[in-house]
C-alpha cells in the first residue's frame, strides 16, 4: 500500500477517532462514486430479509445475475421447506427489455406456483424492471386471482436508494401478510422474533430460550420463517427486534396497525442476550416468568463462563477491528470482545445512523477509529495504524484481513456456527481464539518481528464441546447455584461470572419500548 494514499476528501467526515476531537461523524450518505464501497443495493437488502421465509416462492424478475448472485449464499437454515434455497429467475433478455417483461413474469409465476404450490410468492423487481416500468402490482394481482396463492411484489429496484431501502421494501411486502390469518390468538404471553435470520440455526436457539421462559413464539421473521405464522403475527403482544436496521420498519408498522409494542435486543454476547431476555420478561410483568428467566440466565452463564474464561486468558490484550453491515451488531461485538479481554480499536458499519454512532462511540475506548461506509484501503490503513490482531466482517473483508496477515471472524452471512446466545458466545470465543492465536500468523511477514502467540488451549475437548449446538441441550448446573443470589434479588453479581447481567440485567438505557 502506498503511504501517500489517504482518505477521500468527501469521506473525511465519515471517519472519526474517539478522543481526538469532539464527536462528529457523517453517515447515511450515498457512497462516493468511484469508491471501492463494501455496500450493496436495494435489491440486496430486500433479498436478504425475505430470503429465509422458507415456504414462500422467491422469483427474481430481472436479468440472470441478480438471481445467480443470491442463490443459496446465506446459511439461513430451515426446519422444513427448503424452497427458499432454489434460484428462480425470469432471466430477462434484450427483447424483454424492449417489449416489457410482464408477460414473462406472469407466465413464470404461474408455472412455478403450479409446480411448487408455495404458501405465498415474492417477486423481486430489479433495476431494469423499475426502469422499463413493468407493472408488477398488476401482474401479482392477476396471478393471485388465478392461482389463489398470494403473490407479493417487492419493490427492490437496485438504484432506488441503498440496502436500507431494500429493508423498507421487504417490510412493506411483509406488512401485506401480517394480519391476514383468521386463526384465533394463542393463550398466554406471545411474541414475534424479528430480525434474526437463522444463520447457522441461531433462531432456534433464541426461540428455545423464550419457550423456556414460558413465552409463545408466534412467528420468526424472517429466519426459518413460515408464511402462515407471519399471517398470524398480529396476535403477538410484543415484537422483539434484533436486526433493527432491517426489521424496525415492520415493527413500527405493526405498532401503528395493531398496537403491538416492540423492544430492540441483541442476542450476541452474554450481556446483550441476558438483557434481551430480561427486557422481554419485564414487558410481561409476570413474576413467575421473571423467575424462570433469571434461572435460565444464571444456568446458561454458569455453564459457559468457565469455558469463556480460558479463552479470555489467552486473548487478553488483543485488538480487534469491527466492520458490520448494521450498527446494532457492532455494539454487541464491542461488548462481546470486551468480555474476551479484546479491545476494539476500529468500529464501523455500512449503514449506521447518527444515534448508532453516538452510542458506538460511547462504548469504545479513546483512540478507537469509527468508520462509516469504509473501503478496503481505509480498513487496511487503520488496521496497520492500530495494530489490530483481528478483523470481524463479512465476505469482502475476509481476504483483506488474510492478505494483511490478520485474523478474521465472519460475523455476517457466512458464519457457519451459531454465534448467538450463550453457547454462541462460546462459539464466538472459539472462533476468535482459533484465528487470532493460530500459529499461521507467526509465519506471516507482518508478524515475523512481533512475538509469536502461543496456543494455550488444547483443541481436543473444546472443539468437541463447542462444535455442535444441540437444541434443548441440558445445561449443566451452575457450580455456585447453591450460593448464587436467589431469583428476585437483583443487586448482586454472580460469583462465577462477575456479570451484572447474570442477576440484574434490567437496566434499560438502550431499550426503545415503543
Amino acid at each position, binding site marked *: 500500500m502506498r503511504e501517500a494514499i489517504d482518505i477521500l476528501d468527501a469521506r473525511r467526515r465519515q471517519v472519526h477517532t474517539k478522543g481526538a476531537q469532539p464527536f462528529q461523524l457523517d453517515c447515511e450518505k450515498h457512497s462516493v462514486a468511484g469508491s471501492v464501497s463494501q455496500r450493496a443495493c436495494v435489491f440486496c437488502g430486500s433479498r436478504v430479509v425475505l430470503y429465509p421465509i422458507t415456504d414462500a416462492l422467491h422469483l427474481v424478475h430481472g436479468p440472470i*445475475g441478480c438471481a445467480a448472485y443470491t442463490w443459496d449464499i446465506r446459511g439461513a437454515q430451515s426446519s422444513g421447506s427448503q424452497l427458499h434455497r432454489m434460484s428462480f*429467475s425470469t*432471466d430477462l433478455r434484450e427483447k424483454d*427489455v424492449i417489449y416489457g417483461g410482464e408477460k414473462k413474469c406472469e407466465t413464470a409465476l404461474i408455472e412455478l406456483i403450479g409446480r411448487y404450490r408455495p404458501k405465498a410468492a415474492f417477486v423481486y423487481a430489479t433495476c431494469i424492471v423499475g426502469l422499463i416500468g413493468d407493472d408488477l402490482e398488476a401482474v401479482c394481482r392477476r396471478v393471485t386471482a388465478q392461482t389463489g396463492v398470494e403473490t407479493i411484489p417487492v419493490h427492490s429496484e437496485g438504484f432506488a436508494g441503498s440496502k436500507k431501502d431494500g429493508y423498507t421494501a421487504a417490510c412493506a411486502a411483509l406488512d401485506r401478510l401480517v394480519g391476514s390469518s383468521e386463526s384465533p390468538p394463542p393463550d398466554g404471553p406471545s411474541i414475534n422474533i424479528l430480525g434474526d435470520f437463522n444463520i447457522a440455526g441461531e433462531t432456534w436457539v433464541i426461540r428455545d430460550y423464550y419457550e423456556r421462559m414460558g413465552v409463545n413464539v408466534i412467528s420468526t421473521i424472517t429466519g426459518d420463517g413460515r408464511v402462515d405464522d407471519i399471517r398470524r403475527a398480529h396476535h403477538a403482544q410484543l415484537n422483539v427486534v434484533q436486526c433493527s436496521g432491517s426489521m424496525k420498519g415492520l415493527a413500527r408498522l405493526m405498532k401503528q396497525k395493531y398496537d403491538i409494542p416492540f423492544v430492540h435486543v441483541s442476542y450476541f454476547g452474554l450481556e446483550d442476550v441476558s438483557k434481551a431476555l430480561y427486557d422481554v420478561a419485564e414487558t410481561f410483568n409476570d413474576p413467575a416468568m421473571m423467575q424462570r428467566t433469571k434461572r435460565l440466565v444464571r444456568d446458561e452463564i454458569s455453564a459457559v463462563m468457565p469455558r469463556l474464561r480460558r479463552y479470555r486468558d489467552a486473548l487478553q490484550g488483543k485488538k480487534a477491528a469491527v466492520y458490520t453491515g448494521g450498527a446494532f451488531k457492532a455494539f454487541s461485538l464491542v461488548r462481546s470482545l470486551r468480555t474476551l479481554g479484546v479491545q476494539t480499536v476500529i468500529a464501523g458499519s455500512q449503514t449506521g445512523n447518527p444515534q448508532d454512532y453516538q452510542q458506538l462511540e460511547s462504548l469504545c475506548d479513546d483512540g478507537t477509529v469509527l468508520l462509516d461506509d469504509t473501503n*478496503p484501503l481505509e480498513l487496511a490503513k487503520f488496521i496497520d495504524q492500530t495494530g489490530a490482531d483481528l478483523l470481524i466482517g463479512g465476505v*469482502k473483508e475476509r481476504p483483506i484481513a488474510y492478505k494483511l496477515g490478520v485474523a478474521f471472524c465472519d460475523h455476517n452471512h457466512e458464519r457457519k456456527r451459531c454465534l448467538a446466545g450463550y453457547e454462541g458466545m462460546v462459539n464466538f470465543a472459539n472462533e476468535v481464539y482459533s484465528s487470532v492465536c493460530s500459529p499461521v500468523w507467526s509465519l506471516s*511477514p507482518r508478524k515475523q518481528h512481533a512475538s509469536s502467540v502461543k496456543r494455550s488451549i488444547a483443541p481436543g475437548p473444546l472443539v468437541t464441546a463447542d462444535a455442535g449446538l444441540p437444541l434443548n441441550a441440558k445445561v449443566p448446573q451452575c457450580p455456585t447455584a447453591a450460593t448464587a443470589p436467589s431469583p428476585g434479588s437483583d443487586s448482586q453479581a454472580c460469583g462465577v461470572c462477575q456479570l451484572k447481567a447474570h442477576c440484574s440485567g434490567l437496566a434499560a438505557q438502550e431499550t426503545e419500548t415503543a
Partner: protein
Amino acid sequence: MTLLRHTSADQDVQREALTVNPAKTCQPIGAMYAALGLHRCLPHSHGSQGCCAYHRSTLSRHYKEPAMAGTSSFTEGSSVFGGQANLLAAIENIFTVYDPDVIAVHTTCLSETIGDDVPQIVEAAIDKGLLPEGKMVIHANTPSYVGSHTTGFATMTKAMVDYIAQSSGAEKIRDQVNLIPGWVEPADMSELKRLVKLMGLDPVTFPDTSGVLDSPQTGIHEMFPAGGATVDSIRSAGDSCHTIALGPICSGPAAKALFAKCQVPQTTLPLPIGLKATDQFIMKLREINGGFVPDEIMTERGRLLDLMTDMHQYFYGKTAALWGDPDQLVSLAELLITLDMIPKFVVTGTPGKKFFKRMGDVLGDHAQACKVDQGSCADMFQLHQWIKSDPDKVDLLIGNTYGKYIARDEDIPLIRHGFPILDRIGHQHFATVGYRGTTRILEQILDAFLDRQDRDAPESGFELVM
C-alpha cells in the same frame, strides 16, 4: 420438496419463461474479472452499488482474494438523469485516491438501458482534465440481459485491443505472439505462458490474472498486485506476428479486432484442455516458431499419454454430465471422449447457436448418445431432470460448485471445474490446461472412480492394488 431434489424423475417439465438454478451469470462479472487481469487497473462498475458488491463477493469467494472494483453508486436521480455526473466524479475520485494506470468501466443493465454513452463521458472527463497524464479509461458495454459472464469477459478483453493495442508500422516482431487465454484460472494463464516461452516465443498475454488473483501473502494489502498484463505489453500486441485466441467465445472477438486494427494474423483454437486440444495449441506455436518443439514439452506430452494408457481400463464406457462455459465444455467433452468416456449430458446457460455445432464436431459418433442444451432453460434444473430420468445413472459430474446438490441427491461424484467454485481451494493454483494441467484433471477423474470403487466394494473385493 427439499433442496436436494431440484426436480422429480416423473416428468419432463416444459418451461417457457423461467430459469431455475442457472448455469451462467451475467456479463459485468466477466468484464470485471478480465479487467483484473490488466496491471494496475481498477475495474469500475457503472451502475448500482449492488452489482459491484455481488461481483466482488463472488470473485472473492471463488479466488479467495480481494477483488477490487469501483462503483458509480447509481441513485434514482442517476437513473432518471443519466449517470454522467456519477462517472465523472468516479473517474476523478479513483485517480485521486487509488491512482490506477487504467480504469476499466463496464456497464450494467441499468446504465445500458438509460443509454449512458461511456466513451462520450470519458471524452468529457478528458476535456475537464480529470485524466492525469499517462492514465487511461477503457470501457465495455455489458448489459446483463445479453450473453452471459463469458461474453462480458470477451467484451472487456476486446476493449483492451480497441483502446490499447497499436501497430507501430514497423515489421511484425517475429518471436512475439499474442496469447488470449480465455476465462481460465490464474494458474492456467501461468501455465499457458510457460508453454509459449518453452516454444521459444515471447507471449503478450491478456488478460492475465496470474499474480493478481493468486498473489502471495505479503502482509500488505496491495490495491494493485504485481501481476497482470501491462499497458505497454498490450500496446505492443499490434506488432506481434500472430495472435492465438483460446476459446472462440471468450477470446475470439479480441483476436478478430486485433486483426482488423493491426493486421495481426490470428488463430482461434479450443481451450487446450486434453491431449488433442493441447496438441493443436502446440502445433500452432510450432508453425509460428519455425518447426521446433522442445524435449521438455514432448516429455510432458509423453507423461500424459503414459498415464492415459496406464489407466485406460478404468475409463471405458463411463458416463459424465457437464455444465459450465461453452469454451470449457467443448474441450472437456473432447478429453472425455479420448479417455473412452461418454459425455451424456451437457448444459450451458450461455446463449449462442454455434455451441451445438462445436459440440457436435467434438462428440462425433457420440452425438446421438449425448443431450446438449444451451440458453435460458439450460440450467441446473434441466440437468438434474435429465440425470434423474435416465435409467443408467451417470458416473461423474464435472462442473462448478452448484453441482453439489445434484451430487448429493444422486450420490454421484463431482469434480469441481469452472466458475464459480465456492467450497474448495486448489483450482486457482493448479492449472487444468496443457499436458500438465490435463494430468491433473485425469487424476481427479480417476480418484473419483477409484474412491467410489473402494467405497462400494464388498470386503472380499476391497483390494490394496487397484
